């Protein structure tokens, strides 16, 4: 159908699809029929109009109409073809996109929308997907993950056998079983007490961390640093919070997601492993891990409030770790300072202590999962 219900004549060239010869032609489209008249009066073709297809418009490119039988008709008459498209509902979506592509305002809006979408995806999308994936991962995989990590840490001299007396180890183990029992969720919790300064350059120092399958590692040095067992139980409850929140595994998936996004966004310009891509990824990972710390602190805070009616021991412990960190800058937790450490580990402890204080002031927060 033409623009006003009448017929529409388009001037252009015709290719019959069998040879590369271009023949000047006129294509006339009416409501029911389309007629192609090749210049020189040689031939005239007639088809029902609905058999003709209009190729999607691309800015600056002449329009093409595909004809039944493999022929095609090309024309510079964009206005005419557009009117025909509008009248017959052809290429509605892609026509709209071409309209967007022709305007600077739309281009600026698209730029803004891209940045917003990217930021939203990085801030909320990846963590949410990683969380879902972490909770969907079967327990058997978690157990394998724990085994592998412990094996790696032992072979890399990150720690050695504990030097604490067996009685002391048993005492801590029994206390941890209470914490684990409180944390629940049927994880096969086990506490590993290890010497964090076994002589290698990779020593962990005063440290505690949880693996996704329920293995919690506590170093002799942290036991020595603690003023009381309550403080240690606060730390261990915090670690069980990481386990039930599946933070370790979510971290793995988040790193994977970030790598994928960097690859897609940066394309072949910078590969995902390069320095330029690593810095923003590290900053974002730092942000994700701070969110996980807060969640684990909340779990620990609930435990402390239920058991001791105060979060003070954990706060004391955090403050002491922070002091020790500052004294032995760089050697306490990891080997050597790096840009990543500067960005991710140092800020936050005062905020965490403040958060625990608030939890205590508010009394018991929302029930555990």
């Amino acid at each position: 159908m033409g623009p006003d219900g009448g017929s529409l004549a388009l001037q252009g060239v015709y290719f019959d699809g069998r040879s590369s010869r271009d023949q000047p032609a006129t294509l006339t489209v009416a409501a029911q029929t389309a007629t192609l008249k090749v210049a020189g009066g040689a031939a005239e073709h007639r088809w029902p109009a609905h058999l003709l297809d209009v190729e999607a418009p691309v800015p600056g490119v002449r329009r093409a109409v595909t004809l039944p039988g493999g022929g095609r008709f090309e024309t510079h008459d964009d206005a005419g073809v557009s009117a025909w498209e509008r009248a017959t509902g052809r290429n509605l979506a892609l026509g709209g996109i071409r309209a967007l592509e022709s305007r600077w305002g739309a281009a600026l809006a698209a730029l803004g929308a891209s940045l917003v979408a990217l930021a939203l995806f990085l801030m909320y999308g990846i963590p949410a997907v990683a969380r879902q994936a972490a909770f969907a991962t079967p327990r058997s995989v978690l157990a394998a993950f724990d085994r592998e990590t412990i094996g790696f840490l032992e072979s890399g001299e990150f720690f050695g056998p504990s030097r604490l007396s067996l009685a002391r180890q048993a005492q801590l183990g029994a206390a941890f079983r209470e914490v684990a029992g409180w944390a629940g969720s049927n994880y096969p919790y086990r506490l590993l007490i290890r010497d964090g300064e076994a002589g290698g350059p990779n020593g962990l120092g005063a440290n505690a961390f949880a693996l996704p399958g329920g293995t919690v590692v506590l170093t002799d040095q942290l036991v020595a640093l603690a003023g009381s067992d309550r403080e240690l139980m606060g730390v261990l409850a915090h670690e069980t919070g990481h386990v039930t929140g599946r933070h370790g595994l979510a971290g793995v998936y988040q790193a994977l997601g970030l790598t994928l996004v960097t690859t897609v966004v940066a394309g072949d310009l910078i590969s995902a492993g390069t320095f330029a891509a690593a810095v923003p990824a590290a900053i974002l990972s730092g942000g994700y891990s701070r969110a996980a710390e807060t969640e684990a602190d909340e779990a620990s805070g609930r435990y402390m409030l239920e058991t001791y009616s105060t979060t003070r021991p954990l706060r004391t412990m955090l403050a002491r770790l922070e002091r020790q960190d500052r004294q032995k800058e760089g050697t306490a937790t990891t080997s050597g300072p790096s840009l990543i450490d500067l960005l991710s580990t140092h800020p936050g402890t005062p905020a965490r202590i403040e958060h625990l204080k608030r939890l205590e002031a508010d009394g018991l927060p929302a029930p555990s999962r």
Partner: protein
Amino acid sequence: MSDPAVSARDEPLLGRHVQPPCPAAGPFPATVTEYPVTFTGTAQEYFRLWIVNIALTFVTLGLYLPWARVRNRQYFYGHTWVDGQNFEYRASPAALLRGYLLVAALFLAYAVSGQFESTQWVAGVLVLIYGAAYPLLVRQSMRFQAVNTVHRGLRFRFHGTVGRAYVAYLVTNFVAGISAGLALPWAWYMQRRYQTEGLAYGAARATFRGDVGPFYLIGLTALGLTLAGGVILGVPLFALAAALLSGFDAGLLDSGNILSSGLWLAALVAGYLAVLILYVVAWQYVRGATMVYMLNNVELGGVFRTRATFSPWRLVWISVSNSAARVLTLGLASPWAAVRQTRYILGGVTVRAIAPLDDFVAGVGGEASAFGEAATELLDIQVGF
């Protein structure tokens, strides 16, 4: 979308290319006509198309990606003109989307299963399958590209066989590997020959008149470039590293040495950038020089040749400066860079023919699965010309 395989399917198969008017006129008939290739796209216009497509891809969580890819290609093809007629790209985005989803699922399975010891065998099996299917994917991708390229209403085709694909992309790469790279230029030669000889426009088949020797010359030039550049850039960096090492050795990277570690970091970054630049320069040279050589040695239907007069060195400069511009503008200069590079390359290409360009006739059409195309794009294989 329109039917992706409209063409010659229901038409009778017509014969070979119409013979030139004077077939007995010898190797240089008097009527050689030159048709310059021109590119009419502009950076501003392409920028708008590009950014709108990126936004739509983000907003649709990636589902629009095939449409974005197709529109990008349509823009570049549609603005490439020879003798008053432009090229068209006719791939069906829906077909591409199916391929993308399948490949994305496989890639995700690979990435996730590689993370855990108990599932690493899955990743291993996927890698093996990918390695074994690689030549097939390359061939599929070429078929897809060719059959969706239209000029003057005629499709290109790719009729390279699976067997030859395995020779060109599996055997040669294996030989290049065990010969410590000595056979690498030969592998390039075999691959370019496979790409060129498999190509056809309508019923006119392409032939490759090139030889393996020039590929060795290209390889040696790139090697010499890398070695010389390595020495020029590497020596000062090594000197700097040695100076830093002698400055402090015991408390390696300990506290207080902020200045030293800052210098270390700077030296590392400088070294990394140097390697990156050397790699880009050498690789872009190989690509550019290969492109020039190929374009100067391809013949279509016995009546049609291309000639490339652009300089591979100039192309290296364009690539390096384009990369710098992209990094400095956080990617926003990408459309400008793409248009600049395309304009330079196409501006240096001429088509020379001893018969009018409208004398070609259709050949057999042919469906091509979009899977190869999607697989090769997502898994980052560079097979383009």
